[in-house]
């Protein structure tokens, strides 16, 4: 299973629908990182609303991917962590997810937009903002 990467102008959207095997996780990482570089994405929203189980491996994949994307110069927001998943992650250990988070994709996109505007990136042409 390959995770589709949707493009909204220079923002990329990915939604992880189920737990990934090692190979899928590596594929996802390299697909996303390459795509970010290719389109010089300004922001990436990773939606994990559908995940019931985020174990230490998934947490690491999400974190590593976020770090790689940031290294390239894009902003990242993790969207839709479920309440029980949050409780479980904190019980397992602190700092499992170090990236910024938002309640849902919509708020994640707003956050990305605000960040991009804040850092003065005028290349952002997603809307009529000045």
């Amino acid at each position, binding site marked *: 299973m390959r995770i589709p990467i949707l493009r909204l102008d220079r923002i990329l959207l990915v939604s992880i629908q189920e737990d990934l095997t090692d190979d899928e996780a590596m594929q996802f990482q390299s697909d996303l990182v390459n795509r970010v570089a290719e389109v010089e994405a300004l922001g990436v929203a990773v939606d994990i609303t559908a995940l019931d189980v985020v174990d230490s491996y998934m947490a690491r994949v999400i974190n590593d991917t976020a770090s790689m994307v940031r290294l390239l110069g894009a902003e990242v927001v993790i969207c839709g962590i479920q309440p029980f998943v949050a409780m479980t992650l904190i*019980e397992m250990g602190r700092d499992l997810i170090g990236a910024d988070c938002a309640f849902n994709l919509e708020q994640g996109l707003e956050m990305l937009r605000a960040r991009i505007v804040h850092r003065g990136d005028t290349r952002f042409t997603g809307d009529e903002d000045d």
Partner: protein
Amino acid sequence: MPGDPSLHAPPHPGHCSLAIPITGERDVMHAARKARQMAEHLGFSRAQAYHVATATSELTSNMAVHAGGGTLHLRPLIDTDGTVTGLELKAEDQGPGIADLELAMTDGYSTARRLGCGLPGASRLMDEFSIRSTPGQGTRIKAIKWRHSRPADRS
């Protein structure tokens, strides 16, 4: 291996134990789902059920990745009067074993690609946690979630 004296509750005929073979990573998701379903069926809170599912994912993915597979046993613990007291997870494999258990239970330690909190994380999600491992012969991990251990979790 002989039974553990800390386990006093025999399985009740109404609640079936499950043995789930773990041969690859695909089985990990299945096992976690089954563990969650069983926990919810036994009347655990949702928070507890998520904890059990995630601990199951840690233990079974360890088996899939490090031991070439194994078996996960899910067993309801039931009192003589029929009350569900807990849920036991037992992960058994015939893999290479864990050379240094203390190290494996240390946060931040990982032999491969993990974040290094798989086993310690799983132990924090459960109420009781024990490992026996013999290098060259395999590993057996037993973990229990008590149903009423944390009244604050119940919903």
